[in-house]
């Protein structure tokens, strides 16, 4: 890809970014309202309460301005936030760039939306979120922005092998497999046309890669065989996920994304 073309693509992506983030945050609010801090003092970024300084406390955390008002030394206690590193992975294959109808989003759009919405929820809950192989675990108010930018532009970072991993993708390849650390989830996203095969008449099917197209003289006669095959593929993905200790989840792009996000969040809470 030429540099001019990639620049153009980056511009398009950057134009999409605010919209994407807003959509993700809105979805996050819809799906998981009221996710806040743990209401306990501890390591965290946000102020929790003042208490008297005790011996052994870090001197840097004494609030000198508050303490100067009286005789006591006030210690700034921060909210305790149980931080876990969570890796979000987008299985970005060419087949993701597909939607069967103009009114539907592509599988990639939906996967990114779910990924960012989940990241938003997790970040607000104080978790550290990484993009697999792209960003290191990050937290804080700007983290969502960073993740979104990295998702569009790309990047390189080492993988935290211990982090729980949530994979998004259509997993249409043969013998799907997922990496080991348990407690994650696998979000299998498909287009409704890929599930239902609504085609009729004489149709030439073209793949996402440059392989030879397939011609069906009467596409409707292929439907039942295809449906059996796609069901087998879904089973294979689910089995592979379970084998890796992850919760298998499924989503169609014609379904609303909020229930899928809730299911993802629940899957993470259960572990």
């Amino acid at each position, binding site marked *: 890809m030429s540099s001019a073309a990639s620049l153009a693509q980056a511009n398009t992506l950057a134009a999409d970014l605010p919209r994407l983030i807003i959509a993700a945050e809105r979805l996050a609010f819809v799906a998981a309202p009221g996710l806040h801090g743990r209401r306990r003092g501890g390591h965290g970024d946000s102020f929790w309460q003042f208490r008297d300084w005790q011996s052994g406390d870090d001197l840097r955390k004494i609030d000198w301005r508050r303490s100067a008002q009286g005789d006591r030394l006030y210690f700034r206690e921060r909210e305790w936030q149980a931080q876990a590193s969570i890796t979000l992975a987008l299985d970005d294959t060419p087949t993701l760039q597909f939607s069967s109808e103009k009114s539907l989003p592509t599988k990639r759009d939906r996967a990114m939306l779910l990924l960012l919405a989940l990241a938003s929820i997790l970040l607000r809950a104080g978790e550290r979120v990484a993009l697999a192989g792209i960003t290191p675990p990050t937290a804080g108010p700007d983290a969502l922005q960073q993740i979104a930018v990295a998702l569009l532009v790309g990047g390189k970072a080492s993988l935290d092998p211990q982090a729980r991993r949530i994979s998004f993708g259509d997993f249409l390849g043969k013998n799907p497999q997922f990496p080991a650390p348990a407690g994650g989830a696998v979000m299998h996203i498909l287009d409704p046309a890929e599930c239902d095969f609504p085609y009729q008449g004489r149709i030439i099917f073209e*793949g996402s890669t440059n392989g030879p197209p397939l011609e069906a003289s009467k596409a409707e006669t292929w439907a039942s065989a295809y449906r059996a095959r796609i069901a087998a593929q879904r089973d294979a993905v689910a089995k592979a996920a379970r084998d890796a200790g992850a919760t298998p989840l499924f989503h169609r792009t014609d379904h609303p994304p909020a229930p899928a996000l809730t299911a993802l969040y629940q899957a993470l809470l259960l572990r």
Partner: protein
Amino acid sequence: MIFAAPLALLGLAILPPLFLLLRLTPPSARRVKFPPLALLQNLASVEQTPRHLPIFLLVLRLIAVTFLILGFAGPTLRPPPSLPGSGTVLLVIDDGWASTQAWPQLINTAQSLTSAAGIENRSIAILTTTHDDSNAPLRIQRVMSAAAAAQFLAAMVPRPWPPDRDAAAKLLGATPESTRLYLADGITDGPGFTRFINALRPTRSFIPSALAPLLGAPALGTDGALKLHASFPSHAVLRAESADGDVLATTKFDASGDAAITLPPMIANKIARFTLDGPATAGGTVLADSTTHENLAGLATATGDANTPFLGALYYLGRALPRGTRIMTGPVEKLLASKPSLLLLADTPLAPAEATTAESYIRDGGILVRFAGPITAATPDPLSADPLMPGDRRLGGALTWASPEVLAPFPEDSPFYGLQTDAKTTVSEQILADPLTLDTATVWATLHDGTPLIIGKAYGRGYLVNILTTANTDWSNFPLAGLFPAVLGRLAALGQGVPSDLNTPLTLSSVENAFGQLAPPAVHASIMPSQRIAAVISPEHPPGLYGNGAAGLALNLAPHVAPPVAAYLPNAIKFGKDPPPQRLGPALLAFAFLLLAADLIVSLVLRGALSRRRFAVLILLWLPATAHAQAAALQTKLGYILTQNATVDQVSAGGLSYLSADVSAHSSVQLGAPTGLTPGVDDLSFYPLLYWPLLAQAPPPSPAACSALASYISSGGLLVIDTQGGDAADGGSGAGFAPGATTAMTRATACLNLPPLEALTSSSVLAHSFYIIPDFPGRFTGARILIATPAGRDADGVTPIIIGQNDWAGAWAHGANGAPEESPLPGGESQRIIADRFGINLVIYALTGSYKSDQNSAPALLDRLGQ
């Protein structure tokens, strides 16, 4: 049926192979992107047979191709006969007055010849033998295609003058020989015709089946009958019509082509034209003018020897009146009642009652000429142009020194100016006008010594003339002079307004076209009355009316064209009555393309390129919206609510029509005709103003009507409720006209959710929006009118409702004849003017809202500026 290109039919041979080919070709595939392509591998073995083209599509395509081939072959129904010769066809067409009679048949024949030439691929030249309106020189139209010639023929009109044979003969002599087809009018109209035919040498001639009639000018018989002669009166009925088109009389022609119409003079003078039954043509039409009209003169005298030859006054008068004048005699009151154009009273005193009648007769346009005599000299009465003195003056008798006086030349402002007096005409006895009160302007003729002899004066539209001597030879030899009939002729002409000057040109005021209809002239033309006899009808002197009113002259075809004689044209063919040939090719091609378009849509749908939804949208775009709503939305118009009462609905419609026209005339708003509406059934939202005549006995509106009206007033409409009168207890001039109005109003508006109301005052915008008006009357006035309080008005400050009982529609309504239908109470027409102005204000208010509300503060602002 014949085919213009029969070889194209060979194309039908491709249909069977096409059938096989189409049947073998499957519908083209649709390409679809499908990521899980790998999962589809190896499924192809499940299904082997290719999908066939659906059979209906196959049939559709075959029909379309068949129609295409047939269309290109150019089939023609009722083919025209083939033409003689080869090469360019010259059509020579007589389009003079005589062609009008059979003009449609002539054009039909020409069109059929044209299409024959088109089928034989021959070009056409056209020569019309008559000059056009602008009198341009004749020319042969440039050679054109059959289609262009057909258009040229369709636009041709006959002219109301004869063809120019000489010019046509010259042109034809200079034109190379070709196939010449002559569409003749069938008559020879002068010596030029033989030369013309010799130059033309037509290949084929066509003539009408009946020759054009020519109606001659009417002549007034001595018996008062109008006699007309017509050549070739194929339709043997003659009609006399008034200027309004009323048929005053019909009569039949006898075998020699003569007809006579006898009518009472009053009616005969209304005749504006004579026409022949049948196709209207200029030749079959004679326009009447004042020379056609008969004069009725009334004669009366109080002397005993009225009709005695050489003695009686009436003996002289009857002979001196212009020819064609019809003479009545009898008692004065009877003569006055029949209103002759000229009334001559010889020595007849008038009783006071008769004098009054006579005066009104003069004012209505009559001419009263009073001769003096012994009786009137003894008993003078006041009806004279100037006060007269009793008694008489005698000249040249045995006891006087003076000799009889001759007439002096007529003064310039006299109606007799220009007539020659002679020395032999003498007056020996006369009565005298009072010299003390004499108005010199009334003196039309004097004796040589300056004594007035004839005094006359205009009264209203008529004249009163006193000739101060006798109408017989008792007092003068004037009745014996040649001057006497000339003087009476001038007096008779006073009533007709005939110009005294024959050398003043009269301008063409209405031109008669070849179909005998009058139209405003497109070109300037004029004629001297003196030239009229010799005038020849031509573009320079088109037939029609010259000059205005009663002074006008009518120039008719007869006798100003050459008398028509049937032409000798060997082997001439009569104009066919067949309808023109009909070409089916274009229709077949159009249908084939429609089928192909349908095939395209079906194919797209089959390929899936056109989703069902898009297809539905496409179809919906084709369906026209409901005409009513569309019309209402495109043109602003007022609405009124239909009641069960036809009379009230009619008044509403009439009132709003008048108002719409009034508003359109006075402002830039252009309103359409108002529409009667039933709320709840019709869509009210297109009407800015809705007029609701609420009858006292009307039932409350249905729930559907209620909700429609409520939504109308809440969404910006202006509802005007008018009970058209009020209870007896209500104020205003309409009180008592609609007992029960208040109850009906409460009942009808209960469901409307009305805003709070207040009385309408002259400080409202409604009193300023177009006209500044003090109150708001309709047919009635004075009753309280309610509008919404400012809080209840919409965002623009426009009240959604006006409730009144002034019967506005009644004041606005005008009948079909333009006269108002009802009389406003109590103010009459001045009240109607205010009512009309209120109507305009109302419409402008409904359309522009509070646009003029600043007018309310204008007095205060002006007041402040003044300080």
